[in-house]
């Protein structure tokens, strides 16, 4: 392009451009009308075909494809096609774009935090009655998964993944620093003291890492501490904030004492460096889930235990994901439900767990003989499975959760950066949450 062409083009006559635009608009409307009216009714002659969208890659994608192949062999009349959505982080955005375009999947893998928003979508299949079928054995799913699937008393999805936060630590760093390794009954004070001893500013070594980008990653670790201290995020009917309490203060104070007073916390700005630094022996402890274990280098000897507790309360938090169903036709949503319940049945899911290291979804999975194979392959998962019993709270499933989360994220971030005191941050976040809840 000649450098002189630029300004010339930008200066083209406005009238000519306006005329072109008008013509384009009329033509485009015609094209859209001609293309519209496509649909997703894919059932003909007793055979149905459904689309399942997901964001899995690598091992998980292969395991899911294997499962779908098995299903298609056994059920030639209910054909499942998997569709990669580009990554689970943007699954919600992708699904929404699909609704706008009139081209949405029959089943979508979604984060539990998206459940309340998608529950408002008119095409969502309400599973409340369907899961009462004894063959589904709904109560066999771990509680955190079932609760994540509940919005306003309605079942809006089937648990696809269940996890929790546990304490993962580098054994060698504890030995080198002469600090006794963590135990399941550690207190917040034990945790703080150990982190301080493991910190060495001269070598830039830290006791703990906190994801401090203000996202849900920042929020859920705080929520575990809030619940341990006996606090609640919102009141019982989710209409007002409840975290501006002694418990909320205690949890923030612990973060302040460690992050600002002791400076024993590496503040990850959201790019996930904490895991590389854990692998390089620069960070001794993480609060993380099973998904990080496969990224820890094989030369790092690590241990896993429960989160440190407050007055003996070692609660943790789970961030379950869901399969959500959307309605194209009764035949298709029935086929979708059959596929999803089969996929998440104990017998089928344990295969997926052995392939991927995902935790079991159901209590009965841990009683199958294959479960021993799972533990043998992933010994560290034992603690994560046991720690599922420490999941006693769920995040509120309300459409305004994203805004609530944003306010809490900013609160924690400002305290850890030393920009506000715990008291100021609490009251500011509390008023933001109040207006977010009011403005729905």
């Amino acid at each position, binding site marked *: 392009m*000649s*450098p*002189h062409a*630029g*300004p010339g083009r*930008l*200066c083209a006559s406005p009238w000519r451009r306006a005329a*072109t*635009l008008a*013509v*384009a*608009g009329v*033509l*485009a*409307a015609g*094209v*859209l009308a001609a293309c519209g009216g496509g649909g997703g009714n894919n059932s003909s002659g007793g055979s149905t075909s459904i689309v399942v969208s997901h964001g899995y890659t690598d091992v998980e994608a292969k395991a899911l494809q294997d499962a779908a192949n098995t299903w298609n062999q056994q059920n030639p009349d209910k054909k499942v096609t998997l569709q990669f959505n580009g990554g689970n982080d943007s699954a919600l*955005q992708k699904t*929404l774009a699909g*609704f*706008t375009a009139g081209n949405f999947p029959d089943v979508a893998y979604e984060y539990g935090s998206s459940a309340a*928003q*998608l529950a*408002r*979508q*008119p095409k969502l299949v309400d599973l409340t009655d369907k899961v009462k079928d004894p063959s589904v054995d709904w109560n066999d799913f771990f509680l955190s998964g079932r609760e994540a699937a509940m919005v306003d008393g309605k079942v809006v999805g089937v648990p696809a993944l269940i996890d929790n936060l546990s304490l993962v630590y580098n054994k060698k760093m504890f030995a080198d620093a002469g600090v006794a390794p963590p135990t399941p009954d550690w207190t917040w004070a034990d945790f703080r003291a150990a982190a301080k001893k493991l910190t060495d500013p001269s070598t*830039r070594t830290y006791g703990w890492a906190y994801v*401090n*980008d*203000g*996202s849900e990653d920042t929020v859920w670790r705080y929520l575990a501490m809030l619940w341990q201290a006996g606090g609640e995020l919102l009141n019982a009917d989710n209409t007002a904030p409840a975290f501006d309490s002694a418990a909320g203060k205690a949890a923030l104070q612990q973060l302040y004492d460690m992050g600002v007073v002791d400076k024993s916390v*590496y*503040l990850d*700005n*959201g*790019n996930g*460096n904490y895991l590389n*630094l854990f692998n390089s022996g*620069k960070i001794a402890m993480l609060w993380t889930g099973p998904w990080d274990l496969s990224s820890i280098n094989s030369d790092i000897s690590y241990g896993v235990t429960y989160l440190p507790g407050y007055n003996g309360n070692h609660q943790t938090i789970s961030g379950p994901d869901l399969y959500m169903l959307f309605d194209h036709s009764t035949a298709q949503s029935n086929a979708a439900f059959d596929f999803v319940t089969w996929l998440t049945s104990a017998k089928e899911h344990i295969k997926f767990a052995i392939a991927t290291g995902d935790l079991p979804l159901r209590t009965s999975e841990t009683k199958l003989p294959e479960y021993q194979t799972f533990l043998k392959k992933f010994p560290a998962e034992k603690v994560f499975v046991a720690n599922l019993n420490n999941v006693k709270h769920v995040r509120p499933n309300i*459409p305004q959760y*994203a*805004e609530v989360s*944003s306010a809490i994220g*900013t609160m924690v*971030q*400002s305290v850890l*950066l030393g*920009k506000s005191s715990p008291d100021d941050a609490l009251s500011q976040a509390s008023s933001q949450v109040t207006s977010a809840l009011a403005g729905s």
Partner: protein
Amino acid sequence: MVTPSVVLIGVFGLLPVAWAVWLSFQHNDLLTPGQWAGFDNYRQLVHDPVFRDSVRRTVVYTVLFVPITLVLSLLAAAALNRRVRGISIYRLAVFVPVVTSTVATGVIFTWLLDPDYGIVNSLLAKAGLPTFGFFSSPDSALYSIVIMTVWGWVGFGALIYLAALQGIPQDLIEAAQMDGCSRRGAFWRIEVPLLRPVSAFLLVWLTINALQLFDEVYVTTKGGPLHATTVVVYYLYQQAFQYFHAGYAAAIAVVLFVVIAVITLVQLRLTRDASEAGGAP
């Protein structure tokens, strides 16, 4: 035979714009049918302190990014506009950032500028200079984005300037030198004024891009820490795709569209008047 391209522009360019304007007069969460809102979204916008802050940050960013990029592009182009051995390697080096993906740039810069382990802080510390929090500190995050985006855009500006410099007839420079003008004097007094139309193009182009800053924020700071890099388009994204206030986000988009249109017209008018008055070629 312009119909196919007109249709494409219409479907992928104009309809979304028209739809966004329509959306901006609705309360719409993209999930349920929207409700007519009249000017509610615009009224709310005027009283939204977060939006005001995001505008302020966008202005600060633009005022820093555009002139710095313009000047560095010009200097880089001047340095590259000579015949020395291996010049194409230097030119390539300057241009590489332009074709590097934003995600890769973001990852590289977050490591370079990591407060604890980054090479920049460790060099600063070795030289006895103060170190910075860069992306991790609310006080420096926006400036870190300026550094990163200037690095990414100088190659583009330099390329455009270089092409223009090579189009300047050498006899003009030679004539000036015969009249006793130094090489440096010829550059500032003859070549730079002749580059005015190119500078005008770059000014408009860089300003539009600066006002629409998004990708670099998304891949590095996600608007943080403590909203320090929540610029207008990032705020729009948050409203639309995190909080699902699509109507409100569309109102932000419309306001931004109008502002960019006005600024572009003013810039074009100013630079055109100046070049006519200055007697450009």
